[in-house]
């Protein structure tokens, strides 16, 4: 899963690098980070398109949640734009079928609430990278929660599979009774099941001079 906080005015077709820069990026696994960065960056176009289509009933103009932006073969991308032009983008593994729409919504709400807290922090300068530990912890807990849910989905899938084919070996069926101890998900599962990249939003061009060199070697 990948998330991206992006800030900038929509309206243009191409993503203007001056206007959209990340405020926060988080991903797991760390290997395919650049791929996620690229995906999120391209999905910004879709976000802009969605919020600028006035009058069309594609998406409810009064809502902040944008829903599924576009599905690729491996990943699903979700978007959310606040009134203050901050865009959140989340990329989730497609194999994670247990994720329902309202769960994604609630995750975006949590992100928005945490972002509001960051904004009200006097030590935070709007436009900077988000370095708040509270924000980091919230994101980590969200990622863990998603990993646990995906592992539950895996077990359920396994169970269904094993009940359908009774000829499976005993070793496989014992796996379906396994439950991860709460909060202790092994790293291999994190790596293979979920990738969360939260990239932060870029601020509007007013702080253009403060832009950090984001990995541009896409």
């Amino acid at each position: 899963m990948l998330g991206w906080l992006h800030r900038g005015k929509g309206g243009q077709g191409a993503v203007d690098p001056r206007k959209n820069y990340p405020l926060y990026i988080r991903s797991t696994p760390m290997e395919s980070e650049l791929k996620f960065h690229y995906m999120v960056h391209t999905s910004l176009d879709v976000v802009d398109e969605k919020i600028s289509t006035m009058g069309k009933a594609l998406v409810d103009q009064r809502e902040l949640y944008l829903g599924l932006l576009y599905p690729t073969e491996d990943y699903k991308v979700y978007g959310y734009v606040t009134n203050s032009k901050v865009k959140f983008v989340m990329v989730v593994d497609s194999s994670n079928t247990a994720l329902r729409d309202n769960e994604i919504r609630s995750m975006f709400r949590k992100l928005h609430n945490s972002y509001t807290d960051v904004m009200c922090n006097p030590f935070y300068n709007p436009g900077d990278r988000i370095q708040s530990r509270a924000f980091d912890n919230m994101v980590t807990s969200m990622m863990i929660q998603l990993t646990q849910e995906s592992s539950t989905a895996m077990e359920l899938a396994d169970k269904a599979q094993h009940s359908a084919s009774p000829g499976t070996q005993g070793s496989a069926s014992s796996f379906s009774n396994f439950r991860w101890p709460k909060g202790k998900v092994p790293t291999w599962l994190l790596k293979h099941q979920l990738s969360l990249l939260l990239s932060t939003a870029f601020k509007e061009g007013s702080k253009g001079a403060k832009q950090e060199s984001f990995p541009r070697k896409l």
Partner: protein
Amino acid sequence: MADEALFLLLHNEMVSGVYKSAEQGEVENGRCITKLENMGFRVGQGLIERFTKDTARFKDELDIMKFICKDFWTTVFKKQIDNLRTNHQGIYVLQDNKFRLLTQMSAGKQYLEHASKYLAFTCGLIRGGLSNLGIKSIVTAEVSSMPACKLNLHFL
């Protein structure tokens, strides 16, 4: 009622504190006004983020102005803006006939020359709120007769 007085008194102290700690020549330069305005700017940014968290998406600039005049003003000053005028080309004039931060001061022309100090923070508040919503603006205030005040917004 108590929570209203809290901000009012704090604001008054803030203004006098900024002016007391001003260095020579700063008072004439208007640097104190700038300091107060910048304070209001940062506060406005955070406030707007909190207030717009649960509201629907704004359709256009007029929508944003209506939000400022109604919801924002009510939450901060417990009343709405009395009059909003615009030329639909980026100039807005907000009129508040009984501005909360000035009612305690006078009800006519007395202390008129000091009124601008007490409006600087509010100007910054509006400017910060608008900037967080993606609008760059210039906000100025004029007081012709206390406690009524006019705020001029110029969208850039």
